[in-house]
């Protein structure tokens, strides 16, 4: 066998040919929790705008591990594993809320923690009248919640369970950071949530969001309605280690009058089998400076940040089981949007989300592959389009290659190398 730089010794998989076992094997799923989610990566936790005030908190996950993000009285963000140091119970039982005194108390035995996750007190710690309680060797400082390192980029909050993780901006790389800053260029307003459960492995969705090849082939809304899309230029990029992916489509250059851009670029229809009765759903109003019209950015391992028309959203990719993935859509606009712009964004949201005209099919695609690969462990996918085994930092044009999908697997195999040879890492 020739040189395969990312060859996995167990399955012989490469970034362009992956054993279907990776979608189906509970042992691999368990190894991923330790090596990837608890590994030297940064997991998306939410937006700062979701916890704007002192005491605000949200419950989220790093992989399958429950985590709480909260803001303390001084305004600092903290995150910890939502697992009581006593018996392992969930401490915080709400999806979101505000803790006025900044305390989080486990209901089971009333162990109380502060916003940083430090143990503030345990009932009857010293017993009573010389009876019961813990011994003198019980030190509160040793029984805090597991801390999660927190880092923020333009209001997007990430957490890491691994002390050895590189700084967030280094992990993401310059190209990825620049796009996050571009999309989150000013304060945002959360518009709401949608949750989509797919009966498929999380990597199938991670591939999907890095796969430009399927875009115009699976999602037939635009061609069906004959919506003319000008010959848009764009490019695919990945980060150095391959983990992260960015698709950018540029605004048309030349004599386009941006005031009428929506009319000219989006509403001209030709050759479809149907006509939109109300084209406001696809209308575009320039809202971000610069030349990028659309971007779909996948940040390994847990989130997609999108700008599609005037829909802005994060999609948190949460592995629930080897064959169950939950996608949490967090929709947002900018804080300076007026009521009309907000309504426009809500109308635009018909394009995306679990019921999105150009996104709903991804849920079906994930399940089709999960179901289709049943009983075919040992079989492999084919992802050589546009470059064979090659993985380029940048690839143009968009739509006829699988470069960024290979990038994902390059990063993945890097973290998973030797997963079957025993794991020293503890989650």
């Amino acid at each position: 066998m020739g040189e395969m730089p990312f060859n996995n010794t167990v399955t012989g998989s490469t970034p362009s040919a992956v054993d279907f076992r990776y979608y189906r094997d509970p042992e691999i799923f368990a190894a991923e929790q330790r090596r990837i989610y608890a590994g030297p990566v940064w997991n998306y936790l939410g937006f700062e705008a979701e916890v704007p005030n002192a005491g605000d908190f949200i419950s989220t996950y790093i992989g399958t591990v429950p985590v709480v993000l909260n803001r303390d009285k001084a305004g600092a963000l903290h995150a910890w594993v939502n697992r009581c140091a006593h018996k392992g119970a969930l401490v915080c039982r709400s999806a979101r809320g505000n803790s006025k005194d900044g305390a989080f108390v486990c209901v089971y035995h009333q162990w109380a923690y502060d916003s940083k996750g430090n143990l503030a007190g345990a009932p009857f710690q010293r017993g009573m009248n010389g009876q019961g309680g813990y011994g003198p060797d019980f030190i509160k400082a040793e029984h805090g919640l597991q801390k999660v390192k927190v880092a923020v980029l333009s209001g997007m909050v990430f957490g890491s369970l691994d002390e050895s993780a590189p700084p967030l901006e280094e992990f993401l790389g310059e190209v990825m950071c620049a796009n996050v800053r571009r999309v989150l260029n000013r304060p945002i307003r959360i518009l709401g949530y949608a949750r989509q459960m797919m009966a498929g492995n999380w990597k199938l969705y991670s591939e999907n969001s890095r796969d430009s090849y399927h875009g115009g082939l699976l999602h037939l809304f635009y061609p069906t309605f004959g919506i003319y899309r000008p010959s848009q230029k764009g490019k695919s990029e990945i980060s150095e280690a391959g983990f992260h992916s960015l698709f950018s489509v540029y605004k048309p250059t030349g004599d386009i009058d941006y005031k009428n851009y929506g009319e000219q670029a989006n509403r001209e229809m030709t050759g479809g089998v149907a006509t939109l009765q109300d084209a406001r759903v696809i209308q575009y109003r320039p809202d971000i400076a610069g030349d990028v019209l659309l971007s779909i950015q996948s940040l390994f391992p847990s989130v997609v940040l999108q700008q599609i028309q005037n829909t802005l959203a994060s999609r948190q990719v949460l592995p629930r089981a080897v064959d169950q993935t939950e996608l949490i859509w967090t929709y947002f606009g900018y804080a300076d949007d007026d009521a009309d712009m907000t309504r426009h964004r809500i109308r635009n949201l018909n394009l995306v989300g679990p019921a999105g005209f150009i996104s709903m099919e991804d849920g079906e695609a994930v399940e089709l592959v999960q179901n289709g690969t049943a009983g075919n462990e040992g079989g492999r996918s084919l992802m050589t389009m546009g470059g064979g085994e090659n993985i380029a930092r940048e690839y143009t044009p968009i739509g006829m290659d699988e470069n960024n999908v290979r990038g994902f697997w390059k990063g993945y195999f890097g973290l998973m190398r030797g997963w079957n040879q025993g794991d020293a890492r503890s989650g």
Partner: protein
Amino acid sequence: MQDQDKIRQAVDVLNTEYAHCIDNDTLEAWPDFFVDDCEYQIIGRENVEAGLPAAVMFCDSRGMLVDRVVALRKANVYPEHTSRHMVGNCLLLGVEGDVIRAEANYVVFQTRLDGETKIFNAGKYVDEIVRVDGVLKFRRRACVYDTHRIQTLLVTPI
């Protein structure tokens, strides 16, 4: 002014006809349950309770309802399925002039090709109903759903 029982009865009949329209897969007739200048949305209860406006489906014209049906028939790709609505009796919230405000609980069961029937979406309709040429139509219908986890995707109206 009609008496409340008659209005209640009429709204229940409207809800029954609406549910049968979707469950019988005669979706082309579904937009006719709405006035032209309507607002139809499917929105999570968590958003409504938090005062957040994002819906998974939001149509503020009858034309957008038609577009939804055409996209379902011709463009979108989804698991083949049938729907079965169970709609509770309506709760009349108020009658002001020609506008009836009402709510009704619903459950939508979905059956896919494997033949298993599962609860796909449970929630309540929050409606504003008006009479047009003697026929009751929805001016606003919000499907406020409890089932936050949408299984696979949502394409068929609720």
